[in-house]
């Protein structure tokens, strides 16, 4: 019958060698589960840890931006895992839906935040033309996600009384947090998931396994 060669490329952009916009079914299912799993963690963070940290930053509230990276993590991890345009938005929105359904302090606004954060990460990977998924790309993603979230939304809705200095300090803290927690953290998370055999169908795991073989 029709003999076949590789359907999967080793170094290509996607696990299946298909076009950048052709999502596989498993991309959606695993991406969504990643979001829900992290959503469970978010909810715990929002409920138990955030009020405490919030109190700790009360002396100079713009420092609170240092916590932002936690919420940006799903977007960065989603983009690194799925490696397709829109992956960051998809994963971050579903994580936001989990928060919304469970109840949180921002109400339906988490959906807006989720979209902006995912958009920021998508723009970052898009600037790199969907060719780089290394740690610096991940950190850029985290930074831009923070910029989109803060400059397009939080300044105006939550902190209109901040002076420009305070707004910029808040933004700087957010960017730092995005780079470290979401960027470095997201990169480390995805790599650890690959090592644990949790994402075998994805390029990050395929690279790790083939390299281990050599």
């Amino acid at each position: 019958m029709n003999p076949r060669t590789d359907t999967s490329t080793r170094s290509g952009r996607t696990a299946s060698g298909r076009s950048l916009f052709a999502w596989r079914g498993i991309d959606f299912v695993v991406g969504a589960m990643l979001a829900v799993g992290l959503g469970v963690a978010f909810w715990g963070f929002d409920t138990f840890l955030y009020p405490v940290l919030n109190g700790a930053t009360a002396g100079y509230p713009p420092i609170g931006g240092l916590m932002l990276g936690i919420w940006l993590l799903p977007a960065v991890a989603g983009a690194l895992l799925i490696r397709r345009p829109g992956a960051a938005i998809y994963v971050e929105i579903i994580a936001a839906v989990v928060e919304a359904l469970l109840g949180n302090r921002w109400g339906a606004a988490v959906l807006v935040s989720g979209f902006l954060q995912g958009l920021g990460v998508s723009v970052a990977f898009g600037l790199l033309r969907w060719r780089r998924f290394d740690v610096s790309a991940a950190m850029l993603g985290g930074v831009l996600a923070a910029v989109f979230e803060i400059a397009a939304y939080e300044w105006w809705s939550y902190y209109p009384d901040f002076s420009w200095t305070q707004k910029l300090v808040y933004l700087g803290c957010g960017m730092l947090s995005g780079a470290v927690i979401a960027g470095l953290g997201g990169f480390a998370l995805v790599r650890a998931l690959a090592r644990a055999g949790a994402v075998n169908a994805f390029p990050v795991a395929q690279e790790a396994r083939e390299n281990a073989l050599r």
Partner: protein
Amino acid sequence: MGVGVGLTAGAGVSAGARSSGALEGDHELVVRDLTWRPFGRRDPILDHLDLDLAPGERVLLAGPSGSGKSTLLRALAGVLTSTDSGELSGSVALGGHPVLDHPTGEVGLLLQDPADAMVAGTVGREVAFGPENAGLAREQIWERVEESLRLVGFPYGIDHEVRALSGGEAQRLALAGVLALRPAVLLLDEPCSMLDPASAATVRDAVAGAVAQSGATLVVVEHQLSHWTDLVDRLVVLDYQGHVVADGPVADVLTAERDRLLELGVWVPGAEAPAPLPVDPSLAEPAPGAGGVLVRAEDVGVVRTVPPGLSSWQVVHDPVVALAGADAEVRAGSVLALRGASGAGKSTLAAVLAGLLEPTSGMVTRMRVGDAGAGAGAGAGAGGGSGGAAGAGGASGDSAGLAAGTGWCPQNPEIGMVGRTVRDDVCTTGRALGLDEAWLERRAQGLLGALGLGPELWERDPHTLSGGEQRRLALASSIAHGPGLLALDEPTVGQDRSTWSAVRGVITAARDGGTAVVLATHDAQLAEVADDQVVLERQPAGGSTRAGGATDAEGRAPREPAGGSTRPGRRVTSGLAARSGPLAVLLASVIPMAGAPFLRDWRTAAFGLVAFLVVSPLVLGRRWPQPLHRLTPVLIGVLSLLFSNCWLSPDRDLASAALPALRLGFFAAPAVLLMAYLEPFPLGDHLGQRLRVPGRPLLAGVAALQRFDSLVATYAELRVVRRVRGIAPPRRSVVGQVREAASLTFALLVHGLRQAARMAVAMEARGFSMPVATGRRRTWAQPAPWRGTDTALVGVILLVTALTIGVGVAPW
């Protein structure tokens, strides 16, 4: 190299009268030169495999663990490349056209664990998933649902909740979901391995009935051949390298190849259970000072409240009786077997005896025996309280104390893995307890070796082991540190004859070494090792309904009938929000947010909040069903914004700071309360039909959101595992708790993503991506109507928002 074997049974179609779903045309399945090497493995799992399956043929595929049986089924179903990545070559053709690339719905695949297949909340919608993907008209969908449920002899109606099903029922439902696409080939991947014998028989009968009526080709993979030998006409045997080593009529192969089959570890029907592998008892005896345990449970019961999860908080569930009135006693040097059907409470009783779970009624006594009288009969406590030396670290005790006394092998071994490598995992508890490293190493290596986990596996991540290997690793890890009490939950599932004999050998060694062993199992041959046994009865489910016809006159599914009080859950229906559709609820949640920027001063925002409070009885019902603590985060948010903006504003102006704070309250508080009424599944229905959100991202999102409750339950199980493994931090340590939360989240993600990959297999095999391949739109089994209550809800919220803005801009 692969051995090509011609087909022997020919057209052994014994199907009698074929139903309307009978197949037409040529459906010969031809596999040629199929080779698959997953990335990261040196050698292919499938190596130039050839196989021919005549239409209607029934084939049993046997072979040792790791021979590539499951992989072959995934290749036949066309889902291999969507769940793993690797090098694939060769061809699979059905009736002459290729199916290796993508699922077509003509080849149906049923997986081992029905939980991986479930995508919907109700029975009817679960079965409808495939026909919806195929783009069938609504009447046809419900015809298929009815037909498939009848084929598998399903006892409940279409509105029955999926989560209220037992394992065997869920597997039959999953089978119905596969049959709904009327596949020409039906592939079953160990469909009965996780079921008790009675449930397994019902699944087998359902399969027999379904293939008799549809005439589909059947391929079954199962370790226990005896369930299937009288149903199939051909037996194909693979060896460790994935080569076909025997192929022919069942009876012939069983007779001619008996010795080879036994050697490969295949469970040949009628063969005696293998003798336990001799294992040195000193590898499995209790550590010094841990032995001599006696645990007695008297009249213990466990009642679980069903937590209001993400998808179902507005459905009120009665508490579940997991165990009632059980008596059991286990003492050092003996094995107690817990028997009974699935759902009878075997696992629950094992957890109670192990001290992992406090019973809600009855008494558990833990004591030391044979310790020259010193402190014998030390501890007793009502309600599961435990005391005495052996009981230090009962259900409420500290992690190290619990771990020192108890070894636990959970039913799902994947949950039990805590080490980064196999070697790490086995030694984790012993190291946490500070045991002598040389002693620990000797035992760890001895146990791993005895259980067939050789040194080549020791540096691997335990999650990358096969299911059977993980289970044996979990057994080794539960014993290595030498607990006095060992509780094992189904330790032999998925084992072939040789590994089974090793598992039984280790259990025997533990007993002979003086360990008290609790064994929850439905493996009758394993239970022969027991000195005592307790047989549990399944608790009657609190009212399950047997609904009648599947559709009404128009071919639609009946809506939730009023007064369904005998259902597993009761729905709260008070207030507008509870009676509105999901899009109206979503819209109503967003409206205040859109209005918030127009609030210009804090008095207006305060007015709006009061206005919402006034209409809340209309919207939410007079007795708010949801706990008010949902509002706590909003309250904290409001106070925090008030403080931030006030503290930092140049003149510390409270009035100006109050605006962003009250604005947050204005748009967040109503949204938080309203969004509690959103349920993922109906939301998906409405978003897909009314807003035309693309099917795959939407359905994947909904399926994942439906897993939220089970992920939370898994999180709790993972916590218990870390406690019994001795690595949970002390309760007082905040840093420890944060690190613990991070570890648990990672473990949860590993578990969840691996399950997601299996879900993707099941969903793809039911045509998940078919609309993309065929260009035909997906259809929906139930309509998504916009009702009067929807308009009323949106109207009320809109009115309050507009009124508030109006008050703000009015000239007074």
